[in-house]
């Protein structure tokens, strides 16, 4: 983990208010594991006391890309940056996804920018799997083609039916699990809104499978120091009874095993 001043190589507006920011990063990019994130310092530190966390979308050969949506003042400030501008990042941070195993069928499930956190999982996996992606409308379905180019099967659902099947992503997932799993051993990798992650963990628990989710929490330091980003996880006390403890999403996460999460 380190701090690097990077130069913006390109900054592209995609659909749905999403942007693709590609940075020249000699030092951090080669260290990134799938699911890890960077903490990005905004161009105008005067009114931003905190960095902003973003999953690494792509990382290769001295380049690092993030895929982000403008939602507030920090991402709006980022949107004004141009190629050639400097941006300071801290990373790679957190525990990413475990390596995809050869003997399982990897199922990636994403909502919105969750796709960004999962691309490296697919790219570095030793076997091909299926990506289930959902969003409000066609504009929220990002980088499906990037996954198709890796020869992954991409299944789309939108709430308004403007792309893929109409409905929630869990609907197409359930239909697939019922009809097409054929006794294979799936392993889940998910990133998206909390409701989706919870729904995935429920299915993983029921099926007795392995599942990993990447969680999204408001962060301060990103380094494990401020204890702002905590999530309840299972723990056994000295007497062996089941209880809970806080885990830091920035340090022990953002990726957790489904079985470890305590949902409130």
């Amino acid at each position: 983990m380190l701090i690097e001043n990077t130069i913006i190589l390109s900054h592209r507006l995609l659909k749905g208010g999403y942007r693709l920011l590609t940075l020249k990063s000699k030092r951090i990019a080669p260290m990134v594991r799938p699911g890890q994130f960077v903490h990005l310092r905004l161009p105008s530190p005067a009114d931003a006391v905190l960095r902003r966390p973003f999953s690494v979308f792509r990382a290769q050969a001295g380049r690092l890309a993030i895929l982000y949506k403008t939602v507030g003042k920090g991402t709006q400030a980022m949107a004004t940056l141009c190629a050639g501008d400097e941006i300071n990042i801290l990373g790679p941070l957190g525990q990413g996804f475990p390596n995809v195993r050869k003997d399982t069928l990897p199922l990636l499930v994403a909502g919105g920018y969750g796709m960004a956190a999962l691309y490296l999982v697919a790219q570095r996996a030793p076997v091909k799997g299926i990506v289930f992606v959902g969003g409000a409308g066609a504009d929220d379905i990002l980088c499906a083609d990037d996954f198709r180019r890796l020869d992954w099967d991409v299944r789309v659902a939108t709430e308004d039916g403007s792309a893929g099947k109409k409905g929630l992503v869990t609907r197409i997932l359930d239909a697939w699990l019922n009809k097409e799993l054929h006794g294979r051993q799936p392993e889940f990798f998910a990133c998206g809104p909390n409701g989706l992650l919870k729904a995935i963990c429920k299915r993983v628990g029921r099926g007795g499978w392995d599942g990993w989710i990447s969680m999204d929490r408001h962060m301060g330091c990103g380094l494990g120091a401020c204890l702002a980003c905590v999530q309840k996880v299972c723990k056994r006390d000295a007497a062996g009874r089941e209880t809970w403890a806080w885990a830091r999403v920035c340090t022990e996460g953002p990726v957790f095993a489904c079985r470890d999460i305590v949902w409130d």
Partner: protein
Amino acid sequence: MNKPKPDLSVRIGGLVMQNPVMTASGTFGYGPEFARLMDLNRLGAIVVKGISLKPTQGNPTPRLVEVPGGLLNAIGLQNPGFDGFVRDYLPFLRHYRAPVIVNIWGHTINEYASIAERFNDLPGVHGLELNISCPNIKHGGIAFGTDPKMARRVITAVRARTRLPLITKLSPNVTVIAEFARIAEACGSDAVSLINSFPAMAIDIEARRPILANITGGLTGPAIHTIALKMVWETARAVKIPVIGMGGITSAREALAFIIAGASAVAVGTANFSEPLSTLAVIKGIEAYLVRHRLPSIRALVGTLETGAVIPKPRGPGRPCA
């Protein structure tokens, strides 16, 4: 020819620091969190996150929100307790030369005194910082640090039980902060540090709900710097013990302002989040300033504020510590 380097060292009670820059409790974890990015030995002192006798879970989330010029936090003093600290962090900290100051807190006078006592003769701990901004659960939850009588009692009790250099950390949530500094001095503190965060809140107007789960939190960061500066100035004029200034330091500028106002040392807090190497930049900036102003030492700068007017010193000596 190389000019001699200015002397940055400062003394807080029996504690000697190689430079005046410390970390503010709760913004630097226990050290390991930042050790991968910087050499902790370059710090004046490492002040760790507040420790209580027993482990504390802290508040539900959200615990932190950015606001204009700063942030609100309501972490709720989550910590692993005395045993957890000694087991999980102290062995790591012992590898460093930089002095370690443990910030302590409790809910009753007894808890404060007991936790203070346990750090006696514990190698690797060089001082205590007493956080008196906590509510006294035996007295309707009023913060120890906002009631002169309770402040006197808790500082006296802790002083009686610790042999370590004792820094009392003052709450800004009072009318005259110098009064509390004088109490700390009279009751045997070796130094005072100020300021802790300001009680504040933020509301999500669409949801009509507080943003922090705890409803209220503490404001820190650049927004509080000038208020902290005035409080440090008033305090330094009122006591003879060293004053440690903090609140909104993001660069050497704010640190130097505290020192000119009378602080012997400073602590960097919220700035560690956006720029984890802030402390090192502040040290470098202070040194460059001393060179530029041909000052032989940091001590030569402390309290050199020129006001051009005769300002009466605050009210006489502190009452004896009862």
